[in-house]
């Protein structure tokens, strides 16, 4: 195992353990998402959702719940001096990016494990779409993890960090959301899952993930210089 690999594993294990012990982010994210579903139930005045409406509600909710996690991602590092420790340690700084992105990805996956079945229970007639939806969810999570980590690591150093993360992240993930809703819409159609342009949308999601993972990896060194 190389030094970066060890650093990556250590930071990731630290983050997951801290989240498991304090439960700072995940329960709040899940609660937020569930309540948002209830608000959509009344806001749209529907008890059943399908097609584009279902895809829109699902992705808007997941994205805003994800923002909660993104905002918290580097707060401990900033407040407890984690950034200084990483700078002092003789390790590759990109290990921090990889570990944080993996942690965020894990939060999102756990969030969806809880929240998407609730969504199906609330609004969908059948659970048939959930199988293929997993692929879309995972690819979109990867994109949010890459951009979220990048933006959060910068926003945490600013004066208005809780404001700035969502402000910059929202327009940045618009293409990701276009692709995710585009792929989910036929899956959640009323007559059972369809696969209209499913492959094309998955390709866009993968391209987005690839570009922003590489970009985050490449520029993260500059964010920790001081």
């Amino acid at each position, binding site marked *: 195992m190389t030094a970066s690999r060890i650093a990556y594993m250590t930071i990731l294990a630290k983050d997951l353990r801290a989240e498991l012990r304090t439960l700072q982010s995940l329960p709040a994210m899940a609660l937020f998402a569930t309540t948002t579903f209830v608000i959509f139930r009344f806001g749209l005045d529907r008890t059943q959702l399908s097609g584009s409406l279902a895809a829109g509600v699902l992705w808007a909710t997941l994205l805003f719940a994800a923002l909660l996690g993104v905002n918290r991602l580097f707060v401990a590092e900033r407040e407890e001096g984690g950034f200084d420790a990483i700078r002092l340690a003789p390790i590759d700084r990109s290990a921090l990016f990889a570990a944080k992105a993996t942690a965020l990805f894990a939060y999102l996956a756990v969030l969806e494990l809880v929240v998407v079945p609730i969504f199906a229970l609330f609004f969908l007639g059948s659970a048939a779409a959930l199988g293929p939806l997993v692929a879309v969810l995972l690819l979109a999570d990867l994109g949010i993890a890459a951009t979220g980590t990048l933006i959060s690591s910068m926003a945490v150093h*600013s004066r208005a960090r809780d404001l700035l993360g969502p402000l910059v992240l929202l327009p940045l993930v618009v293409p990701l959301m276009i692709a995710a809703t585009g792929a989910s819409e036929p899956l959640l159609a009323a007559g059972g899952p369809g696969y209209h342009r499913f492959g094309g949308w998955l390709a866009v999601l993968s*391209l987005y993930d690839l570009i922003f993972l590489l970009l985050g990896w490449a520029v993260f060194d500059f964010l920790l210089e001081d």
Partner: protein
Amino acid sequence: MYGKGLRPLSIATVVGIAAALLLVFFYAPLDADQGFIQKIFYLHVPLAITALVGFILGGAFAIAHLRSGNRKWDAYSYVAIHMSVIFGVAVLITGSIWAKASWGHWWVWDEPTLVSFLIVFLMYATYYPFRYAIEDPERQARYASVFAVTAGAFVPLNFMAVRMAQSLVHPRVFATANGGLPGSMMFTFLVCLAATALLWVTLVKLELTAKSASGQLKRLRRALDAPAPGASGSRIAPEVG
């Protein structure tokens, strides 16, 4: 130090814009379909292309800043993005006017290029609050550069996703690419594009000059305001040199 060449550049811009306007109103033929309102095309499309190229240039300058550490490139990147955002406002307004004239609505979601441009504009609009929320100037420059690089990569991805989201059966009302243009219109369009690009370059140069001048002024003021050596009582020994 940035002011050199500003005057000839300004003159070239004025001449270019005058020539472009003359061509638009007296040389280019009236569009058979849309009539006079089609002339806004000569303003709208060059502005959009210049703004997008400006955003990409902002990203390229940001890469130069990150690689070299030279703050000059950060100023270039900032001014390029700043000017492109201003051009972007003009793009959205002219696009809106055109949409109202040819489709009857101030905003249409069917035109993927305009929608993509709106999203790109919203992305770059967050550049200012982002940049100015970071206090330390050195860190601010670095983070703004990372933003500019990230947003630069976002532009083509966004265009791709928005275009794909349009249903394939929807007909393109007019080609924004130069596909079906007759020669005289194409020539006018190219002159307009060159004039708009010149305007962008001139404004960028002007702002850089103003920024560098105000920076120099600030430095001079600070030098003047600093207490003369030996005059302040708190100092134990006068500074040397």
